[in-house]
C-alpha cells in the first residue's frame, strides 16, 4: 500500500533531518542567542507549515487529476534541498 510506503519513507526522512537540523543551530546562532535561534527554527518552520497546509488544502480540493497534489508535495522537499546551505 503506497500510504504505508509514504509513512515509512517520511519517518526515515524525519530521522535523518530532525536531530541533524537541531544539532546545526548552535553553529549558526550568534553567541548568547541560542534560545532565540532555537525558538525561531520552530516558529519559522511553523509558519511554513501553516501556509503550506492552507495551500495543500486548496490543492486537494481543486479537482485536479489525482496525482497532481502528490507530485507537488514531492516537489517541495526537492526544492528545499536546493536551498540547503553549502559547506559543513
Amino acid at each position: 500500500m503506497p500510504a504505508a510506503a509514504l509513512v515509512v519513507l517520511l519517518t526515515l526522512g524525519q530521522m535523518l533531518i530532525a536531530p541533524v537540523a537541531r544539532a546545526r543551530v548552535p553553529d549558526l546562532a550568534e553567541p548568547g542567542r541560542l534560545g532565540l535561534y532555537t525558538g525561531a527554527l520552530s516558529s519559522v518552520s511553523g509558519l511554513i507549515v501553516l501556509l503550506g497546509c492552507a495551500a495543500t488544502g486548496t490543492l486537494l480540493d481543486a479537482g485536479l487529476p489525482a496525482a497532481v497534489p502528490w507530485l507537488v508535495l514531492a516537489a517541495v522537499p526537492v526544492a528545499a534541498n536546493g536551498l540547503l546551505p553549502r559547506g559543513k
Partner: protein
Amino acid sequence: MTTVALARTPLSPLLRLLILTQLAFNIGFFAVLPFLAEHLADAIGMAGWLIGLVLGLRTFSQQGLFVVGGALADRYGVRPVVLTGCALRIAGFGWLGYAEEPCAVVGAVLLIGFAAALFSPAVESEVARQAVEWEETGGGSRTRVLALFTVAGQVGAFAGPLLGALLLAVDFRVSCLAGAGVFVLVLAGHAWLLPQHIPGRARVREKGGVRALVHNRRFLALCCAYGAYLLAYNQLYLALPAEVERAAGSQAPLAWLFALSSLLVVSAQLPVTRWAGERLDPRRSMAAGLLLIAVGFAAVAVARPPN
C-alpha cells in the same frame, strides 16, 4: 540502557534531566491533546469551525511564540523560564479541566500553548548547547544526543495518548489533572536540579538579535529545509487520511500507520543517526532525508489510479 548504547561516556546529569523532561512534557501534553477536539464538541458544545479555530490558536500560541520564549531564555536564563512555563501549564490544565464556558476553554487552551512556548525552546536550546559541550569534551557526536532527545519525545507522544485514553474512561477532567500532575513532577524536578546559572550559557541583556537572524541566510535556509520536512509530516493529518480511505475503504488503518511511525522512530532513530553520522555530513544527511520524503510522495502519485 539507551545511555549505554549511546556512548561510553555517560551523559551529564543535566542532559539526562533535560531528556527525561522532554519525555514527561510529551506524556503530559499528549494525555490531553488528542481528546481535546471531542471534549470541545461534546461537553462544551462548540461548533466545528470554532474547534478548528481554537486548535489553530493553540498551535499558534505555542509554535508561533517559541521565538519569544527562546529570547526570554537568552535574557533571563533557562531556569526561571522553564519554571514559569511549567507553572503556567499546570494552571492551564487545571483551568481546562474545570472550564465550561467557551471563553474560559479558549483561555485555558491558549495558556497551555503559551506555557510550551516558554519551556520548550529553553529546554531544547540547552540540550543543543549541552550536546555540543558533550561532543567537545570527547563524549561523542552531538547529533546522537539530539537523536536520543527525539526518541524521548516520541516515546512520550506515544505513551501519552494511551494514558489519556485510560483516564478518559473516568473523565476528561481526570486526564487534565493527570496532565497537570506530570508537569508538577517536571516543575519539582527542575526546581530541585536545574542550576540557577548554567556554566557556559551566556546571558544577553540587550535586544536586537532578530535583525542579525533575519539576515542569516544559512540559518533561514535551515529553517526552510526543516519547514519542508514539517510540512510533509503534517500531511499525515491532512492528505494521508483521504488517501487511506480511498485505498482501504476506511480511515481505520491510519492509527496503525501512526503507530508504525512512532515505533520506527523509537527503535531505529539511534541506529539511523549512528549510521548516517559515519557516512554523511550534516548537509548530506538532511538532503538524503528530504529526497526520501520526495520519493514517498512520488510513490503515492504513481500508485494512484486517475479518477
